[in-house]
């Protein structure tokens, strides 16, 4: 019962944040609502017992990543997005498609994924076991992520670095 309450409360916050992200017209608000989503998601993780994940969810995601976002928003001092004529495809086809698709998927998840129910801390993900996995079975992926990060750094450096002639206009 208690579990269900917590789940519903934070789930509601989650969805609310997500919706707010959509309706807000200023990116900074969206960013903050995304932080809210992530925070409440962390709680949901905790409810499922994934302590480690919840922790890095807060630290890495809500902390590092979102900060990066906010930083960029500030850097480019992006204002409220102005109303430009969007694309019909997106509105007329995309949205209905998404809604319908979601309904189908949710229906499938509800009825057909005979996943039972879980009590609090269904699967305790202590850092110890996680580490066990990471450094044995998932050693290779773990190492490979370092390359991923490298690439990310390089890419960021290349693209964000001021070009010698930054003020050049588009050529075509």
């Amino acid at each position, binding site marked *: 019962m208690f579990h269900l309450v917590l789940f519903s409360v934070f789930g509601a916050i989650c969805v609310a944040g997500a919706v707010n992200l959509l309706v807000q017209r200023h990116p900074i608000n969206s960013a903050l609502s995304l932080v809210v989503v992530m925070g409440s998601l962390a709680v949901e993780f905790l409810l499922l017992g994934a302590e480690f994940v919840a922790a890095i969810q807060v630290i890495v995601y809500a902390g590092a990543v979102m900060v990066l976002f906010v930083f960029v928003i500030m850097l480019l001092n992006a204002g409220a997005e102005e109303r430009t004529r969007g*694309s019909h*495809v*997106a509105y007329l*086809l995309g949205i209905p498609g998404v809604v*319908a*698709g979601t309904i189908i*998927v949710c229906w*499938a998840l509800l009825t057909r994924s005979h996943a039972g129910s879980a009590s609090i801390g269904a699967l305790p993900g202590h850092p110890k076991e996680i580490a066990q996995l990471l450094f044995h079975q998932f050693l290779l992926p773990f190492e490979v992520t370092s390359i991923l990060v490298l690439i990310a750094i390089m890419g960021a450096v290349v693209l964000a670095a001021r070009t010698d002639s930054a003020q050049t206009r588009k050529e075509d």
Partner: protein
Amino acid sequence: MTPNLHLWLIPILPLIGAAINGLLGKRFSRRLVAAVALAFCGAAFGMALWIAAQFSSLTLPHVEVVTSWLRSGTFTIDYAFSLDQLSLVMLLVVTGVGFLIHIYSVGYMWEEGGYYRFFSYLNLFMFFMLTLVLASNYLLMFVGWEGVGLASYLLIGFFFLRDSAAAAGKKAFIVNRIGDFGFLIALFLIIQHFGSLDFQKVFAAVKPYAAETSGAGFLTAIALLLLLGACGKSAQIPLYVWLPDAMEGPTPVSALIHAATMVTAGVYMVSRSHVIFERAPVALMVVAIIGTLTAFFAATIGIAQTDIKKVLAYSTISQLGYMFMACGVAAFSAGIFHLMTHAFFKGLLFLAAGSVIHAVGGEQDMRKMGGLRKHIPWTFWTMTIATLAIAGIPPFAGFFSKDEILWRAYQVSWIYWLVGVITAFLTSFYMFRLLFMTFFGEYRGAAGAEHGHEEHAGHGTHLGRDDSRAGVPAPHGHGHGGIHESPAIMLVPLVILAILSLGGGWIGIPGSLGGGNHFDKFLGPVFRTSTPAINSEHAQPGEAAPPEQQTEGTEPQTGHGTELMFTGISVAAGLLGLFLAWVLYGRPTDLPDRIAASIHGLYSAVVNKYWIDELYASIFVKPLIAISGVIFWRGIDQGIIDATLNGSASGARELSDELRHMQSGNVRSYAGWVAIGAFAVIVYMVWVGLHAS
């Protein structure tokens, strides 16, 4: 065991001549060219004579297979030549007359450009004609058949700078092709039914068949198709239209090809296939009718023509009609007889006419002639003989042959006879008209010699090359002034032919006139062996039919008296024509014009040859061209097919243009596409999944 006569040499010799002249003649002197041409043509003639000499010693028909020509499965065609009485006659006529005309041409064409071309063509013609005559199977005959057509095409178009000449040549070839179409189909039918084209085989296979008296079977079909071919070649209704135009060719050509030899090929072919015809009464009747009609029809046209050669052309058509009539009444030997005599006198007529034209400087319009007999006596006398011969005045050659035909025609139906007699009358009328207009009265074409220059003003384009004047008829008599007799080399053939047209008929004097009709007897073996059995049951191939069934040479029940009477009538008709011609044209008078005026409609119809050419042009030629051009080419080809293609191409481009609008450049719409795609995929997979489980 018969000796090997090397028959193949006879056609080949002229071919060699043609090749030599055609390839090298350009560098030769005129004498050399003439020498070569005459040598090879003469050689052929000599060989023909040599064969004739030992003819009696041969077992006939005498067939010589040189080599195999083509083979397809079991069906083969050989280069095979055969000799029998019929082909011997033709052989002699062709080589003999041909040789004479060669001689004549040496003089006649002396002034022309393209001398070597002329003689090489002439020899080429000899080659094909002799192939036609000597061929021992239909296909080889067809070779000659088409070949002579080619030769005449070349020779008619010899003066190719004259558009009329070029057109005439083309016309001749195409009309002949229409006939050949029939010939080909006939050949296919023969192949289909007898599996061979060899004369001996085919005829042997045909003999057992009874005459298709009731209705018409495939033999009739074959016969009629062959007839179509013959009509094309021998200028019979409805395919005669090319022959008058063919007079565009040099006169010797007209004499050789369009009078003496080639045009008679049809008659020869019909008589050659008499075995088939005799078994197709319907076809025979058609032959007779066509012949009769043509004879009469052409004669009427001949009356009003003023171009000396045109008159002769129509008379040729008319005479050929006689021959067809003969074949149509199964009097093949009579037909061949007339063919021979006709070769003599008609050849002579043309040569003489040529000599006249030569004399008056290329003028051909008889209204511009007259009173020539004192200037060119030789020509005059020889031409007179020829005219008497064609008019059927005894004892000239034409009399006997024509009389024979008429008599045999009468035995089948008096209508043929009647028309024949009328035609005889017309013939003698227009022929004497020609004679009188040309040689009697006063010379009417004073400026003729000059006139000749403009007549064929072809020599605007002199390029100083050998062939420069090729294709322009040389203005005769230019150089030596005025009217003049032709040189000896042209007169000799005239004389020889005159003798022949005088005495040529005597070999066939009918019994009624106390003669033995040797000619008929001579050809007998060819034509008698084959009369159809009444019913095919008790008649084996090759078995000669019992005498009483023979249609050939059997003396009719009516005695000599009646035959003599009919003879008298036809002679009378001839004389009447002579008289009438004398009345109208013998001396200067305006009678003809008044008559013409009085029956104006008919007259103009005749003058304009009943507008047949115009008719053909408007119902065949023009519509065909119009349809091909407008409907087929512009319409179907470009309008429909290409349009469809290009249409579909542009359609694809438009579709492509639509597709690229998917690329609005807007990321969100791209995401939209992805979302839609994802949605579709999800729906599909869920559907599948639900069905799977």
